[in-house]
């Protein structure tokens, strides 16, 4: 009796300790996985920065060190002093800004109407517009490039803005429809009852309420255009945007210039993304997914 009781106790203890061990092991594995993921994400970015501020003897060797040994701002200074960066920088900024503004101006009114359509038609229209993003960009860029050569729009800002809108508008319509869906119809109806006409109800009730969504959407457009590569590579021959210029230095095999350009290309994006984090998180995407 006594011994069997003891044995039971020992077994129970043993069970608990294996359970604890397994729990610890699980936790250890989990932290290892998290640490590896974080390293996988962060190390490449740090390496890019490192290359852009390292002296050549640290990089162009058979066995490059992982840490910064000889720090230098020379590559940044050289890129800024050479001055090849200003034209692409200006072009990228102008194009992205026009795309953001035009994107909202074209997509927002349409998205409002789509959001007020009957349910079954609404999703059909949205899906039809959004599915245009399924087409391969090289397939659209080819005829666009051929047509723009004829129209004299190659190498112009207008041509690039039009091309970027192809990519941006469906996304914008999708996001903005979600924004307008969240504004109750009753508010407009109340305005109509109070004696507004349709246009007034839109301008005075709906517009102020949708401002936040429009701002977020237009910033997303700005980023898409700033990063855009495919259309730009088809439509920029002499005057390139910043991504194309970066690609040009990659082609030439110049590590330091391409690293510095890549850093300059990323900095604005990083700033905007961090400011916008709350919008870019799951809310908008999940909103779009609830359909």
């Amino acid at each position, binding site marked *: 009796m006594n011994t069997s009781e003891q044995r039971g106790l020992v077994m129970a203890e043993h069970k608990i300790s294996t359970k604890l061990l397994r729990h610890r092991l699980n936790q250890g594995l*989990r932290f290892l*996985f*998290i640490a590896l*993921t974080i390293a*996988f*994400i*962060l*190390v*490449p*970015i740090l*390496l*890019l920065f490192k*290359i852009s501020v390292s002296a050549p003897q640290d990089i*162009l*060797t058979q*066995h*490059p060190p*992982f840490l910064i040994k000889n720090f230098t701002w020379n590559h940044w200074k050289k890129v800024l002093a050479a001055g090849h960066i200003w034209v692409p920088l200006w072009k990228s900024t102008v194009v992205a800004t026009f795309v953001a503004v035009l994107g909202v101006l*074209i997509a927002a*009114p349409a998205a*409002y*109407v*789509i959001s007020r359509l009957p349910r079954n038609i609404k999703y059909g229209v949205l899906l039809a*517009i959004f599915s245009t993003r*399924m*087409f*391969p*960009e*090289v*397939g*659209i860029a*080819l*005829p666009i*490039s*051929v*047509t723009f050569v004829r129209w004299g729009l190659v190498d112009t800002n207008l041509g690039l803005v039009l*091309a970027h*809108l*192809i990519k941006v508008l*469906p996304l914008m319509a999708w996001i903005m429809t979600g924004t307008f869906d969240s504004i109750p119809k009753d508010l407009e109806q109340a305005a109509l009852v109070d004696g507004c006409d349709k246009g007034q109800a839109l301008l005075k009730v709906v517009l102020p309420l949708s401002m936040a969504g429009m701002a977020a959407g237009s910033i997303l457009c700005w980023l898409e255009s*700033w*990063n855009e*590569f*495919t259309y730009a*590579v*088809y439509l920029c021959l002499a005057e390139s945007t910043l*991504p194309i210029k970066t*690609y040009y230095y990659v082609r030439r095999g110049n590590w330091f210039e*391409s690293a510095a350009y*890549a850093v300059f*290309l*990323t900095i604005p*994006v*990083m700033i905007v*993304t961090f400011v916008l984090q709350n919008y*870019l*998180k799951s809310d908008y*995407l*999940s909103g779009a*997914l609830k359909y």
Partner: protein
Amino acid sequence: MATLRIIFKHHKLEILMVLPLILFVLGFTLVPVLQCIIFSFQDQITGEFPTLGNYREIVGSRKFGEALKNTLLVTLIGLGLEMSVGMMVALLLTTKHKFRGIFRAITMIPMGVPTVVSGVIMLYIFSTNGYLNEFLYRIGLIQLPIDWANGGFRTLFMVAVADMWKVTPLVIVLLLSGLESIPTTVYEASAIDGASRRQNFFYITLPLIKPFFTIALILRAIDAFRIFELPMVLAGRNTMFLGTYAYSEYFDYNNIHTSGAASTILMVVIAIFVFGYIGMVGSREVEQ
């Protein structure tokens, strides 16, 4: 006809508001796509239409066959990596622990890095005197540097990893919004029934986030088939993909017809995948 006129009369403002978007999509997306298809069926010299000559030409060429094979393989490898790792990270992000907030913020960082830049970064890591080789050398796995970009499976692996680095955050966001939509009461109920964690995962979590999984997979597959910037930066002209093949036919050989044919085939590949997948697995989910 009469009802149409009434609709026009009552909804003038609405029609005016929708028109710019519809016209733009028609004029700058659908017309170019049709043009692209027409190019692909036109004879290169006489402009005769329709002809299958362009397709015969590219299907017969070794370069195109390789481009097609590379595209399919990189999609397969990339999707496998992205969906599995994305799923693991998303699951870790739903369990509560100290570092969740910061971990979540860090996983989102690659989303903010332009694709070209991620390509440049990977170029440094995978070059012969790059950091991956150096790392492998230091832990003693290799003696001589590996040339990752000289074609074959290695290059595909490199492109897939580069793609994975950039887009897994999107997969995580989509799966996470699915995981967060599962009410905790479901797990409370299963705990009462004595379900193990594995059972929880396979019988509750997976079926409930299936629609989100489907959407993430389809979105990712479309982008993976169209992969363009990363191969341009990383693989150069040695390892072709369908996108870069179409580009090279136009820019290197000035041939809009074969380029159009390659784009059309890419379009068909995407369509087959999307509709095939929806038809097989997820018609109900997509409708929901």
